[in-house]
């Protein structure tokens, strides 16, 4: 691994660079644009073709579902929600890290986000696409999918807006829409870069159409930056609301194991946790495949590991509190649901969840492990397995043994359950491969702003004296003479 410079330690004076490798504006453009412009590398096909095959499996499994109905899945009478809902919650959660990186870290002025926000936002959009498939297909009757929306219809019926299920439709679809707009607005200047570098007419027109004729006018940047800031401000409460609403699908039911007030924050923390693990997996592959180790640096990976440690601990705390409240409530059904979760027929799933989600990130207390590429990769995969199992445990272990023992049954996933899970990964990775091939993987215009030479006052800080009362306008008379050098 070509590690040119360690930027994970803060120097004695000043700040560690966010980008290493001595990039200037031109070489940075080059580094990001060349993977888009060169011939498709062989390595890309190794990822793309298997993904496409998995996507094909998704198509087949959905087609068979529509033909045959939900009987192809392992659903039974107590467990009426199976993999479809587990996958839905899992994918919505994956998306959350993208918005956290692009919006929340933007508001907190965490400039290291600029190297990874483009890919993370793309990940959000593809994850939401995967998520949206499942509510659409999960009843097996796609021709009534329009019942989800408040549309005038021949039955003269309207959705029940008091139900979290309809909140979910609005929250997730609006989340997808806003994420797409946020991503596209960020892409415009970089699409213009690809347009201006394009050698063929087709590329010029294709990228040119989406670049909207962007020409970097500062009168445009002014509105652009304001729009971007406001989108970040809007996406922040939105993303927190989305997984809260998803959690209310469960929390407003009376079923022991679902009926808990801790669900909204617990779901949001878990969503960010799993999303960061997915960003980590993708970035570790991309930075090697596209030779971007100096742009997506060790510092970026270490920061992500720290966030995974934090959110992992929050998730672990939630698991503990759930158990405590079940005991403390004195409610026998609640106590049974949680004893059954840890010791019953689904104990294997519960302990996979706990070991992957709570134990794995603990190694990130050590800097050595936060900087260990191999462990980062393994842990990111383990955490995603754990987070998928978290949703599986919440859905099935709560449903399969409810109040009446006569209702009890065991949910066993079938081939088609797994086909839809694997297939959704196919959709996700196919989209991501296409993105990584045809669009700039890094927000070049934004990364340029964190290079030292982008600062118009570079080297001035030490000599500048701030005159009392002059807030806005810099001293004008210095300019015409000082600009010299001609």
């Amino acid at each position, binding site marked *: 691994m070509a590690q040119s410079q360690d930027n994970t330690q803060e120097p004695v004076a000043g700040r560690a660079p966010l980008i290493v490798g001595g990039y200037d504006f031109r070489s940075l453009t080059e580094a990001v644009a060349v993977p888009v412009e060169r011939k498709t590398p062989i390595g890309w096909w190794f990822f793309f073709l298997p993904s496409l095959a998995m996507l094909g499996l998704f198509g087949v499994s959905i087609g068979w579902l529509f033909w045959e109905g939900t009987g192809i899945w392992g659903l039974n009478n107590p467990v009426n929600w199976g993999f479809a809902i587990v996958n839905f919650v899992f994918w919505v959660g994956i998306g959350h890290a993208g918005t956290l990186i692009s919006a929340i870290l933007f508001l907190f002025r965490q400039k290291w986000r600029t190297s990874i926000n483009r890919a993370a936002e793309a990940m959000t959009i593809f994850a939401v696409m995967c998520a949206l498939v499942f509510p659409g297909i999960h009843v097996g009757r796609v021709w009534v999918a329009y019942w989800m929306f408040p549309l005038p219809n021949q039955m003269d019926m309207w959705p029940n807006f008091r139900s979290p299920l309809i909140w979910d439709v609005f929250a997730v679809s609006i989340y997808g829409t806003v994420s797409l707009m946020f991503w596209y607005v960020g892409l415009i200047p970089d699409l213009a870069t690809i347009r201006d570098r394009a050698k063929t007419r087709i590329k010029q027109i294709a990228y040119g159409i989406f670049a909207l004729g962007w020409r970097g006018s500062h009168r445009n940047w002014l*509105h652009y930056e304001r729009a971007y800031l*406001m*989108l970040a401000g809007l996406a922040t409460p939105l993303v927190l609301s989305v997984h809260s609403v998803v959690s209310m699908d469960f929390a407003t039911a009376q079923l022991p194991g679902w009926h808990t007030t801790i669900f909204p924050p617990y779901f949001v923390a878990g969503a960010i946790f799993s999303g960061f693990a997915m960003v980590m997996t993708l970035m570790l592959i991309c930075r090697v495949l596209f030779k971007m180790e100096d742009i997506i640096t060790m510092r970026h990976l270490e920061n992500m590991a720290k966030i995974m440690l934090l959110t992992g601990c929050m998730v672990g705390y939630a698991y503990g509190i759930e158990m405590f409240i079940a005991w403390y409530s004195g409610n026998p059904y609640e106590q049974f649901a949680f004893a059954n979760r840890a010791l019953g027929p689904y104990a294997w799933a519960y302990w996979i969840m706990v070991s992957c989600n709570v134990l794995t990130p603990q190694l990130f207390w050590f800097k050595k492990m936060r900087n260990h590429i191999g462990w980062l990769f393994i842990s990111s995969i383990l955490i995603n397995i754990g987070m998928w199992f978290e949703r599986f445990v919440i859905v099935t272990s709560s449903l399969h043994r409810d109040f009446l023992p006569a209702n009890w049954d065991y949910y066993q996933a079938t081939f088609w359950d797994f086909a839809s899970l694997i297939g959704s990964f196919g959709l996700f990775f196919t989209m991501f491969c296409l993105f990584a091939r045809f669009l700039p993987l890094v927000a070049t*215009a934004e990364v340029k702003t964190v290079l030292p030479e982008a600062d118009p006052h570079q080297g001035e800080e030490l000599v500048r004296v701030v005159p009392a009362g002059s807030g806005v306008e810099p001293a004008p008379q210095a300019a015409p003479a000082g600009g010299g050098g001609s």
Partner: protein
Amino acid sequence: MGLMTLDVPEASAGYSHYGVLARFETAKALYRACEAVRDAGYSKWDALTPFPVHGLEKAMGLKPSRLPFLVLATGLSGAGLGFALQSWVHIKGYPLIISGKPLFTWPAFVPVTFELGVLGAALGAVLGMFAFNKLPTYHHPLFRSKNFARVTDDGLFIAIEAWDPKYDDQDTAEFLSRLGAVEVEHVPIDDPADDGDGGGAA
């Protein structure tokens, strides 16, 4: 105005040139030059950069964007319409008593009201930004300049338009050179050789 029009005011009629385009080597030089152009009293001019140069709007003397007011309006409209839709559905459209609750259960309408408010505001921010910036504008005289392709790479430019009252073919170009421009050129309005489609500056 409108989609895909040439972003040249009607005032351009009768001018042979769009104006002067000058490239600067560093962000610092550009910033200083912008302050000087502002102080020299030019009004029809622009700075063109591959990334937003921090604080350049102050050096250019631009007022803050008014976009937030539009976003506030569209956001409140989205939320208001969302709340009205839900109230209408439950009071008038399909009045169904569920769990013995009243028909107008406003607290349950909060999540969808919030989501539609966010949607309205986000649409306002993006579409408003497009409208304020006149995007898409696929044709622009600046794209005639070969040099200008660098604006999305590493080129930091100032363009002063010919219809600025203070503009003079010679003096303005010299003024920009004096400010430290490394390349100064006159950009034509029309280029008959170009068929004019696509957004390319190639």
